[in-house]
C-alpha cells in the first residue's frame, strides 16, 4: 500500500482529518523548534525529553500540566465561542483581569458568608464582570462596525491599567507589591488531588466545556450564533436579530474568560495581584485555533498547551534553553493550523520526496 492511499483514507474520514492536520501542525512546529534549539547550540532531544518529563513525569507533574491548562480551557473556549459567531475576541486577557478583580473583591468583602454561598457568588461576579467588559466591543461592532480585533486589544490595555488603578488606590494590602489581601479560606476552591496544587477548577472547566458544547449544538441561541458567523446577511434575512446576537455572543465569551480570572484567584493565587497574567488570553487564541473552535477540541488543545507550560519549567531548569522558544512553537502552530494546504505540502515533502509533490 503506498503512502498516498493511506493519506487519502485518513483524509476521507472527516473529523479525523482535522485532528490529523492539527497533530501534524504541532509536529512540524516542534520540528522547527528543534532546529532552532540545535542552531543555538543546544541538544534538541534532551530539551524535549525534559519538556516531556516536566509535563508528565510524575503525579505532581501531571497535576501541574492540568493546573496550567485550566485558565487556557476558559480563555480558549471564550475565543472559540466568539469565532463560532465570526467575532475575533482578542480581549479575553482584559476580560479575565476584570473577572479576577471582581471575584477577589466579592470574596474579601463578604468574609462571613459560608463557602457554599460565597464560592458560587464570587464565580458569578467574576463571569458577569467579564461579560460586561466583552459586551462593550460587541456593542461597538454591532452598532458602528468598529472592528473587534482593535477595540478588544485597546480594552485589554484599559483593563490592566484600570484594575491596577483600583487595586493601588482602594484595595491594596501592606507591602511593596500591588495586590489585594488574601481571600477568606472558605472562598478558596478545594483541592482535587492531595499534595498538588490542582483544584476543582478543572471540573468547573470541563463542565463549562460541556455546557458550551450543549449551547452550540442543541439550543436555538447556538444556532443563531453560528448562523451569524457563517453568513451575516443570510442570517439577518432569515429573521435572526444579528446585532443582538453579536452582543450576546461577546457577553457569553467574556463570561467564560472572566472565569479564567476567577479560578486563578480562588484556586491558585488566593488574592488579586496586578499584572498577574502571563498572557492567558492570548494563548487562548492559539488554543481555540488549534481546537478548531470546537469545545472538545479546545479542551484537548488546552491540555497540550498546559503540558508545554508545565514542561517549560523543567526544560529551562535542566537545559538553560529560554522558555520563550515555546512561544515561537505556539506561534508556528497557529500559522500552520490556519493553512491546511501548507500542512499538506509539508507532509508531502517530508513523506514522499519531490517526485510525488508534483501530484498534489
Amino acid at each position: 500500500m503506498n503512502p498516498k492511499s493511506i493519506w487519502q483514507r485518513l483524509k476521507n474520514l472527516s473529523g479525523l482529518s482535522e485532528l490529523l492536520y492539527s497533530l501534524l501542525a504541532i509536529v512540524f512546529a516542534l520540528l522547527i523548534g528543534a532546529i532552532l534549539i540545535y542552531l543555538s547550540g543546544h541538544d534538541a532531544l534532551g530539551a524535549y525529553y525534559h519538556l516531556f518529563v516536566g509535563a508528565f513525569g510524575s503525579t505532581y507533574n501531571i497535576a501541574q500540566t492540568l493546573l496550567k491548562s485550566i485558565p487556557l480551557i476558559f480563555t480558549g473556549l471564550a475565543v472559540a465561542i466568539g469565532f463560532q459567531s465570526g467575532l475575533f475576541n482578542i480581549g479575553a486577557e482584559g476580560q479575565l483581569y476584570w473577572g479576577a478583580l471582581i471575584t477577589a473583591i466579592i470574596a474579601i468583602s463578604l468574609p462571613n458568608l459560608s463557602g457554599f454561598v460565597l464560592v458560587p457568588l464570587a464565580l458569578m461576579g467574576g463571569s458577569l464582570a467579564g461579560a460586561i467588559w466583552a459586551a462593550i466591543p460587541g456593542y461597538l461592532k454591532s452598532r458602528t462596525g468598529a472592528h473587534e480585533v482593535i477595540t478588544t486589544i485597546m480594552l485589554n490595555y484599559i483593563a490592566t491599567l484600570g484594575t491596577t488603578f483600583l487595586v493601588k488606590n482602594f484595595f491594596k494590602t501592606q507591602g511593596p507589591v500591588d495586590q489585594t489581601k488574601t481571600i477568606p479560606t472558605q472562598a478558596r476552591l478545594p483541592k482535587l488531588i492531595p499534595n498538588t496544587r490542582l483544584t476543582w477548577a478543572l471540573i468547573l472547566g470541563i463542565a463549562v466545556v460541556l455546557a458550551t458544547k450543549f449551547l452550540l449544538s442543541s439550543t436555538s441561541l447556538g444556532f443563531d450564533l453560528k448562523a451569524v458567523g457563517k453568513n451575516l446577511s443570510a442570517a439577518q434575512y432569515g429573521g435572526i436579530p444579528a446585532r443582538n446576537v453579536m452582543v450576546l455572543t461577546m457577553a457569553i465569551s467574556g463570561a467564560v474568560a472572566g472565569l479564567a480570572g476567577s479560578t486563578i484567584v480562588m484556586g491558585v493565587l488566593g488574592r488579586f495581584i496586578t499584572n498577574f497574567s502571563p498572557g492567558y488570553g492570548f494563548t487562548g487564541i492559539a488554543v481555540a485555533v488549534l481546537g478548531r473552535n470546537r469545545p472538545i477540541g479546545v479542551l484537548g488543545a488546552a491540555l497540550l498547551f498546559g503540558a508545554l507550560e508545565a514542561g517549560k519549567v523543567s526544560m529551562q531548569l535542566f537545559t538553560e534553553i529560554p522558555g520563550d522558544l515555546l512561544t515561537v512553537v505556539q506561534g508556528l502552530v497557529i500559522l500552520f493550523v490556519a493553512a491546511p494546504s501548507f500542512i499538506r505540502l509539508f507532509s508531502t515533502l517530508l513523506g514522499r520526496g519531490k517526485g510525488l509533490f508534483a501530484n498534489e
Partner: protein
Amino acid sequence: MNKVLAAIFSLNTLSAAIRMATPIALAAMGGTFSERSGVINIGLEGMILTGAFAGVAGSFYTGSPWVGLLLALFAGGLLAAIFAIFTVKFKANHVVAGVGLNIFALGLTTWLMQVLWGTRGTSPNVNGLPRVTIPVLNRIPVIDKLFANQSPIVYMMFLLIIVGWIFLFKTPYGLRIRMTGERPEAADTLGINVRRIKYFSVILSGVLSGLGGAYLSLGHLNWFSMNMSAGRGYMALAANIFGQWNPLGGLGASFLFSFSEAVQIRLQSINLGVGNELIQMIPYVITIAVLAGAVIKSRPPEALGEHYGNEK
C-alpha cells in the same frame, strides 16, 4: 488648569507627538498598501517588533546603525514575505495567521535576545542613528523645534508618506494594487498578476513596519527591549482604517494617537493628583472612540480578507 493646557499645547508636546507618530504612521501606510491589495494585516505588530530587533542586532555586530537600519528593513520584509506566503499561497485566514505571526515574532525576538545577549529584559546599548537638523527649516520661528535635532527616520517618514500617496493614487502601479483589493477577478482579466501584486504590497508593508521598528530601537532609543512594539502595530492598523486606507489619512490618525500619548506622558509628569493609570488610558480610549466614530463612514476595499482563486 493653565498648567494642564500649557502641557497639552506646548511645542515640546507637539514635537514629541511627531516623533511618536513616526513608527505608527510608517506601519499604518504599510497596512494601507497591504489592505488595498486585499490582505488584512494584523501582523504589522510583529513586523515592527522584528524590525526593532534586527536594527539593534545589526548595529551591535557591525557598529554601524545604518547597517542596522538596512537589516531592519530586510527583517521586516522577510517576516512579511512569510506572512504573504501563508495568506496568499496557502490561503490561511488573514486574521488568524496575523495573530500567529505576532506570537511567533514575540517569541523569536525574546528568545534570540537571550541567545545573543543572555538577557530577557533589554539588549546592550548600541550605536543609534545620529540626530539631524534640517538647515533652512530650523530657522523659521515657532516651528524650528520640529525640524531640529530629530532622527533621520522622522524626515524619511514624511517623505515616504508623500511618495506612498502619489504611488498609490497617481501611478498605474497604485491603480493595480487598488484594483486587486477591490475586484481581483477584473484585475486578473486585465492581465494583472493578482498574486504578485499581493506579495509586493504585503512585503512593502513589512519593510515600512521594519523601518518603524528601527525608529523605536535606533532612532528614539538605542537598545531593544522585550515586546518593544507594545501594541503600535494594532494602533497603526486602527490609524489606517481611520485614515480611510490612505497614507495621508493614516498619518493624520497616527498623529492624533501619538498626540494623545504625548499629552499623557506630559500630564504624568505634572502630577495632577489623578492616578497615572487613568492618564495612561487616554490613547487607548481615544483609539476606540475614533474607531467607533469613524468606521460608520468608511468603506474597506471590496475584496479585503478574501482569497482569490487563481490556482497555481
